[in-house]
């Protein structure tokens, strides 16, 4: 089309004039502030063994999320929860300490996470854990702000993919750079 690209450009300009009919309160944007990567410390996971899961949360520049231990009862803490199928039991969850930062809108420091943070879970595969591939569904709950405004609290799914082997099977230590002792 001879002038098709002009039409396309005009339409693109027109979209800037149309008010953003975004999500009611922008939960969609809130969900994109944090992206996650998940690592499992053993490959495979033998039945009866305790293994570690690391969820690395990458927080978009200019945004922060509240630390797990908040300094105000009204603030929404970051929380990772597991909804484990039969055969798996959560032993513990460890959160990094928050960074104390002062923001222009607050007279007091807030405990927050910025950049990258890692939540670690210790999980036990029971003697009867299903053999083969398993998915452990987790959910990461957080509330993000930048220097100007706050996005609504959201819960995003995080999936742990692992393989369960028979008890006593050889298991390779995976991702030592994340799980080094």
């Amino acid at each position, binding site marked *: 089309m001879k*002038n098709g690209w*002009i039409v396309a*450009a*005009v339409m*693109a*300009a*027109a979209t*800037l*004039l149309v*008010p*953003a*009919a*975004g*999500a*009611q*309160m*922008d939960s969609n*944007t809130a969900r994109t502030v944090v992206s996650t990567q998940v690592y499992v410390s053993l490959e495979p996971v033998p039945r009866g063994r305790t293994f570690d899961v690391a969820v690395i949360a990458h927080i978009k520049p200019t945004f922060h999320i509240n630390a797990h231990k908040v300094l105000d009862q*009204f*603030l*929404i803490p970051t929380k990772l929860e597991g909804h484990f199928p039969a055969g798996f039991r959560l032993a513990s969850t460890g959160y990094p300490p928050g960074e104390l930062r002062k*923001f222009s*809108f*607050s*007279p007091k420091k*807030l405990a927050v996470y910025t950049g990258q943070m890692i939540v670690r879970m210790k999980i036990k595969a029971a003697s009867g854990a299903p053999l083969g591939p398993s998915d452990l569904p987790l959910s990461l709950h957080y*509330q993000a*702000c930048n220097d*100007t*405004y*706050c*996005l*609504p*609290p959201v819960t995003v799914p995080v999936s742990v993919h692992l393989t369960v082997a028979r008890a006593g099977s050889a298991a390779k230590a995976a991702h030592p750079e994340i799980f080094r002792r």
Partner: protein
Amino acid sequence: MSKRKNRWLKVALVLSLLSIAVGCDRNASNGSTSGGIADLGPAPAVSFRNLDGQTVNLAQYHGKVVLVNFWATWCEPCKAEIPDLIQIQKKYGNRNFTVLGVAMDQEGKSVVAPFAAKPQFVVAGQTVAMDYPIVLGTDQIATQFGGIIGLPTSYVISKNGQVVKRVIGMIDPQEIDRLIQQLLSS
């Protein structure tokens, strides 16, 4: 040569259209035009529930200048500007003006009511509670306002029900004060 000239004309046309679009959008967001009061369209016909469970229609404020402020108890910048909103309410509350605080806490009244009632905001040397009407917001109400990007977000509505300003983030209290004075005297 004419092909090149054509190409440059096309580029110029697109750039002009884009700059008009960006300029208009920025003005719409800020609600200001040079020298005048913007018109962002009629305020939506929304109904809220107040903390007593009663229905509050935005239309019942027709004839008043209204500063609709979307906020939440978990929002630090929202809480930081509450003293300014209390101050504005004290200054203009008896002159056909009101702040209307729309709380977006999912827990609703159970969290918002005790928060609003607690004297915790320092205004003119005194520790006071929120002194303007508080209602409960919902995602549907946010949609009716065109979608809320984040909190706080405020809308200034003129006496005849037109939205004249939208602020994403904390308000500039002096700028809002000037606008309110202008609207009250118009």
